[in-house]
């Protein structure tokens, strides 16, 4: 028999799936800010935040919402090399596939973009942009200078990448949208809404305020960590439900299980 916790566990499998998108106060603000920036005559927009703060899903959502209104493209994974990247750009701009054994002439591409000015406005969203090298970033900037292509660059916020951001965008970025970890309130809403979306009312109600506080303490409000934590909690619950039901109460999640999950994920140590 399928344990009730199995479905709950699946809710928190980490993925960038728009169906799983949870509208929160903070993410709504970031979305509106980003949408507003797109409508401004900006060349580059930087979306900034620590890993797991919801940058990818935000870009996905923006793409999904605007794809029928604007020429908007989402590059979810960075190109492995410059050649591949410009192949992709060429395809976006010309709507043609580059013939085999040919390479993009960058100067010609910039000129092509300049000629497009006023005729077309293309938005390209680059996720995980910290993986692009400085040279490539410079070329991206030159393309954006044509004012026919607008780039939304999503970057991880780490100490090193802060430096990258500073070096390459300090004078070129016109707008920065920063995402933060969730507050306790937002994280509570996030977990609740996720479970309720899958009709798991009982399980949602079994997570008490104290549990949310503890989960938030361990995950620091990071959505990715939260997903991992919830997944592990429900996996442990599932084990007890199937093998040792005396050790679990269905009306609440014991603190013991949350701490066990935290131990498992390395948030705490013996």
């Amino acid at each position, binding site marked *: 028999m399928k344990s009730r916790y199995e479905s709950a566990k699946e809710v928190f499998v980490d993925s960038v799936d728009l169906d799983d998108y949870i509208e929160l106060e903070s993410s709504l603000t970031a979305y509106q800010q980003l949408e507003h920036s797109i409508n401004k005559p900006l060349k580059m927009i930087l979306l900034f935040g620590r890993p797991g703060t919801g940058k990818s899903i935000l870009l996905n959502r923006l793409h999904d919402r605007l794809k029928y209104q604007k020429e908007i493209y989402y590059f979810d994974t960075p190109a492995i090399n410059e050649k591949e990247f410009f192949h992709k750009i060429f395809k976006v701009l010309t709507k043609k596939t580059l013939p085999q054994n040919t390479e993009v002439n960058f100067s010609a591409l910039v000129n092509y973009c300049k000629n497009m000015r006023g005729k077309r406005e293309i938005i390209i969203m680059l996720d995980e942009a910290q993986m692009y090298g400085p040279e490539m970033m410079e070329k991206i900037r030159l393309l954006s200078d044509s004012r026919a292509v607008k780039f939304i660059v999503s970057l991880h916020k780490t100490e090193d990448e802060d430096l990258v951001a500073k070096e390459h965008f300090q004078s070129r970025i016109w707008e920065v949208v920063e995402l933060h970890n969730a507050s306790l309130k937002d994280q509570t809403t996030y977990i609740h809404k996720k479970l309720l979306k899958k009709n798991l009312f009982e399980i949602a109600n079994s997570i008490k305020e104290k549990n949310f506080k503890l989960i938030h303490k361990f995950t620091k409000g990071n959505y990715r960590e939260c997903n991992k934590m919830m997944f592990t909690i429900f*996996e*442990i619950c599932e*084990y*007890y439900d199937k*093998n040792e039901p005396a050790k679990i109460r269905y009306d609440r999640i014991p603190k*013991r299980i949350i*701490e*066990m999950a935290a*131990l*498992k994920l390395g948030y*705490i*140590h*013996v």
Partner: protein
Amino acid sequence: MYNIKALEEEWKRYRRKKRIPIIVGVTAIVLATGGIVFFMQNKSYILKEHASPKPETAKSDIDIYIDRGIADIAEKSNEALIDTPIEIANVEDNEEAEKDTSGGKKKLHIEVIDVSKKKSSFKEIEKRFRMGHDIDDSLFLAKSYYQRKNYKKAEYWALQTNKVNENIEESWLIFAKAKAKQGHKNEAIRILNAYIKRTNSIEAKVLLDKIKKGKI
């Protein structure tokens, strides 16, 4: 699926480790509190032992004389039909009280008195009586004040003794003698008569005779 048993063991170790600071903290607080209490007790004992005697102030006299007990006895002694200046308690209580007084246990305050009969010692004993209502204390004060010819206070403390236990003969006798000494001879006679009527005490009869003859 994880190895839940191993995870459980790990969690138990984690919980034990988490509790150590709490246990240490609580133990430290208990020990510190105990230490402070012990120190304070010792300190107050030392201070008591070495306290310099303070002269009795006029205020303390006033305190004593505005006591309700005096007002009671004044009222009661003016009522001719009332035999005693003190309310009579039930027999059981009296018996118990008698047992208490005839128990023969030597109380600590007696040592204090023997060492010094300074005013400060009296004050200490008065204070102690107010806290513990020990008739040994009040009777001692009545006798001591009588000896020092402070008849008002002797009368007061005899009355206090009587309030706690009305069967202490000495308190009746001191009360009557103190009254007589203050010139209230008729009152003293009336009080002694009431007591003799109740107890047929020979000592009371002897004292009554002395008062009547003006020997006291």
